[in-house]
């Protein structure tokens, strides 16, 4: 990892815009998103379906390119690179875990072979005993994915993603297809992995994931509504001065017009 200002930030998004062109017109999935994901910590990205979570994660993981804006991972800018160079960087810097356990694994490779493959791709360490122990897979080395439970498969997906200690691993709803016991075991493992130095960014609907996260990003309508560190959630103000009002507050403004007054350093927003 380059020793620059990114020491405490694993990945940064600046002004991310993503537009998809569909048969029925343009879909603006991300409308200028800024976010800094802390290094060696778990971050959650939450928001209703269609809020842009998956678009954000795919861009962060280098699987998709933004229509506009910048992504920087471990101080390296992903945008504007050649295809070959982006591919090499993605291998070295990024891990990705899909929602469906089966999508993350190769059916004919054993647990040990998955990690061996990942180690070769990242030129990482070849001794995975400690990692398998940490994820409760030590007795499963010679098993194929089809012989593992859903929870074990997903823990293996994370193990594969963190081999070689990449600065960033991104996971799209990794607990969505697990029962609550398997999800809890996965989250214990995720927490332990962050302790080894990798930043984990998880898109989720699962309150348990949010509880264990050091930072939570709230997306709505393709924009960052709020960011929480610990218990307090703070609204995000973008560069153009826009703030998203929470849905319950929006009801107070049926005409969609507000009067803003500033009084002794505080800003009041009320219906006209």
């Amino acid at each position, binding site marked *: 990892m380059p020793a620059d200002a990114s020491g405490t930030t694993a990945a940064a998004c600046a002004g991310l815009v993503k537009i998809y062109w569909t048969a029925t017109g343009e879909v603006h999935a991300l409308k200028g998103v800024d976010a800094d994901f802390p290094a060696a910590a778990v971050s959650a990205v939450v928001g209703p379906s269609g809020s842009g979570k998956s678009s954000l994660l795919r861009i962060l993981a280098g699987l998709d390119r933004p229509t506009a804006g910048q992504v920087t991972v471990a101080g390296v800018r992903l945008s504007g690179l050649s295809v070959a160079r982006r*591919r090499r960087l*993605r*291998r070295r810097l990024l891990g990705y875990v899909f929602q469906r356990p089966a999508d993350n694994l*190769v*059916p*004919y*490779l054993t647990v040990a*072979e998955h990690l*061996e*493959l990942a180690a*070769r*791709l990242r030129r990482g360490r070849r001794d995975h005993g400690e990692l398998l122990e940490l994820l409760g897979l030590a007795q499963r080395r*010679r098993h*194929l*994915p*089809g*012989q593992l439970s859903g929870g074990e498969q997903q823990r293996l997906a994370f193990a594969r993603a963190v081999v070689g200690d990449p600065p960033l691993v991104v996971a799209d709803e990794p607990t969505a297809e697990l029962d609550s016991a398997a999800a809890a075991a996965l989250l214990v493992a995720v927490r332990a992995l962050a302790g080894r130095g990798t930043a984990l960014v998880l898109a989720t609907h699962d309150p348990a994931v949010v509880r264990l996260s050091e930072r939570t990003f709230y997306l709505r309508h393709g924009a960052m509504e709020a960011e929480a560190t610990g218990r307090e959630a703070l609204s995000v103000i973008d560069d153009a001065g826009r703030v998203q009002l929470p849905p319950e507050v929006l009801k107070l403004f049926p005409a969609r017009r507000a009067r803003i007054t500033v009084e002794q350093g505080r800003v009041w927003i009320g219906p006209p």
Partner: protein
Amino acid sequence: MSDGARVVVEAVGLCKSYRRGPEEVRALREVSLSLRAGEVVALVGPSGSGKTTLVNVVCGWELADAGRLYWPAGAGGRSWDELAVVPQDLGLVDELTVAENVALPLWLSGRLEEGQAVAAELLVRLGLAGKADRLPAEVSLGERQRAALARAMVTGPRLLLADEPTGHQDADWAGAVFDAVRRLAGAGSCCLVATHSQEFLARVDRVLTLRDGELVGAPAR
């Protein structure tokens, strides 16, 4: 192939059920079969007849509820020389190029150098030489399917299991896929191929038909 050819794997009384919602599906009912070196065997049957389950049980990806598999020559289908599979969803590694995917079994079993020529030849025969440096996502579905076949063949496994390997091929490439399978069998492997393709069926040594999870024997040919 002679009747005296070496048995590669023998299955006796395989049963497998699973739940689909409230319903219990009996995917395999007492399936017994014996596969021999050098033969190309087609596995046919309507969708849902148990073809994929049989392939998955033989390769060990799913465990049978009852019944046994015997591997007279080996360690139960767990080595790269013994068994290779072309699954329906292909099982390519997204981060590896086509050529790297094909060479993956060589790489993991530590014989990349000795197998390099075989890998290169498979790439040419299956029309992938010009796409060798692309990622799976950057080639067509038909090309991905042929890459998965090349990857399965690269170690010359004693048993090749392929689930619908011509499902995404046009007539010319389906012919090339069959030729590659036939060539592997010619070198002493057994190939069990789940297929709907009439062209394929016309050229195999033997046909096994599954209906509702039961093997109903070879139709008159």
